[in-house]
């Protein structure tokens, strides 16, 4: 992985190699905390923060750590950043911290983070690694946010409920009631709903990819001119 353009890194993280939809990593938080927009956004931001910071740090020390102790060193770095994030959330968004509970410390075990450290950060320069961490984190966070939005709308009929947990008192009145009071479709908020929505999103992504592929293929259909005879005899030099 000598020279990968920043553009390509962004494309990889957000779409082509999206951690949640393509690599299917970090499914545990993806399915467990996306019941509402605020939970999804909170965990998405936390993951993105840890991922960017750990990628940067790991890229910095990549030439000084021997192969034998690589993994323990990486895990140590990731764990420290996770602890920092956890303490930050405890300090500034305490209620959200209690709601997300075990899933914040569990960011340590999120496969995306060690995966990017192994696959990218320990082989690339600092700037590229930081961008990769940010883009992978954003890709994951955006999918979390999308699933959270869909599940909150379908399940509770609201949007942006409890946003003050993340944005402070000014977000108290952001809640939108879309279908009126008394609406509820519980399965969307329960775990099966997360599986269904995530599955649908993956299917949607595959459909879009296939569309793009066929369009590109149609555009690049080879235009052959002149003789179209096929050589069937003789040696091919």
């Amino acid at each position, binding site marked *: 992985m000598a020279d990968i353009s920043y553009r390509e890194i962004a494309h990889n993280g957000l779409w082509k190699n999206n951690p949640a939809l393509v690599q299917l990593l970090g499914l545990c938080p993806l399915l467990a905390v996306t019941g509402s927009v605020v939970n999804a956004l909170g965990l998405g931001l936390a993951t993105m923060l840890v991922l960017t910071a750990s990628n940067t740090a790991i890229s910095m020390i990549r030439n000084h750590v021997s192969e034998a102790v690589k993994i323990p060193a990486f895990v140590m770095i990731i764990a420290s950043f996770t602890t920092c994030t956890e303490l930050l959330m405890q300090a500034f968004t305490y209620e959200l911290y209690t709601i997300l509970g075990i899933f914040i410390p569990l960011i340590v075990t999120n496969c995306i983070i060690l995966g990017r450290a192994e696959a990218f950060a320990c082989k690339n320069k600092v700037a590229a690694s930081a961008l990769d961490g940010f883009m992978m984190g954003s890709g994951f966070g955006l999918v979390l946010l999308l699933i959270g939005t869909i599940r909150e709308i379908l399940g509770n009929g609201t949007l942006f409920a409890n946003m003050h947990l993340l944005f402070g008192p000014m977000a108290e009145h952001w809640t939108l009631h879309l279908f009126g009071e008394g609406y*509820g*479709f*519980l*399965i*969307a908020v*329960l775990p*099966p709903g997360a599986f*269904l929505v995530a599955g649908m999103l993956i299917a949607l992504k595959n459909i879009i990819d296939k569309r793009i592929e066929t369009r590109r293929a149609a555009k690049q259909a080879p235009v052959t001119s002149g003789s179209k005879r096929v050589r069937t005899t003789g040696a091919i030099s």
Partner: protein
Amino acid sequence: MALMKLTSPHAHAAQNTAAVMRLVLLATLPGLLALTAFFGWGSLINILIAGTVAVGLEALVMNLRSRPVMFYLSDYSALVTAVLLGLSLPPLAPWWVVVIGTGFAILIAKHLYGGLGYNPFNPAMVGYVVLLISFPVQMTAWPAPLLLYPEGVATPGFWESLQVVFPLLSPDNVDAVTAATPLDTFKHNSGLLVAQLYEKDPLFSRASLAGLGWEWVNLGFLAGGCFLLVRRVFTWHAPVAMLTSLALCAALFYDSGSSASHGSPLMHLLSGGTMLGAFFIITDPVTSATSNRGRLVYGALIGILIFIIRSWGSYPDAVAFSVLLMNFAAPLIDNYTLPRTYGHQKPRRATEKKE
């Protein structure tokens, strides 16, 4: 559908899918009649709505998948799913409940997995469970038996029932009278001996076997099931195993009729969805185990699960949950219950590759 290699003699299959499905539809009639006689027009309306939606969605999906629409519609499988769902939903459920349940059954449980023959879970039961989890209020409101309507309250006719199902039709909100089912009664019984309960509660005191209305609904499905058994639509193994294990569990925990009793075996056999489940749901050839021995295990485990969930769970009935859980387990059961083929000392392992 996991097909199993069986040795000769092979009986010639005289029935195709459509014929089997038609027989199943016919066999639900006694149960439907009993439901209509004791609980009003609700079940029939459920079936009409579910049937319309199911056939419409099936046609839509087949069209989207570029398959011949009429060919697939004429195998009646969508209609059977709709009828089974309509029978298991509470009569007089709001129309949108029925529509959402049917949509989940046909679109997600059936066609997302590849259509008839590929669905690992029973579509009707998936629809039912999705509804039960999502709309507990509507799904646990079972109407009172018509005979137990309070004095002075008229029992709803067909038009009134339609108004309950489609609230838009009624200017002055018609409501149905709901009541506890025998299973609910036992679940919430604290302090009454079973004998006292049977004496005090008109649901039992006016019944001849086990719960007014419910006994006849279940006997109706039993009759339909026996008809299918005689016509050899399915084998006896799964239903008999399920009913036996359920009755055994109920007998073990009957507790000599104390206030902590979970109900007599007869009550368990003849209430809730027991008979509908035993003869119409767990005999589904696609989602159940395939060998006879496998079906015995499959049915018995469903019976045990039904008793466990009914007695110590918080939902009104347990057939749907038990069936879905065992649908998960059916491939594993198949793996361990392969029949021995003629000429072999012991059954071959399902994982064995060599021919």
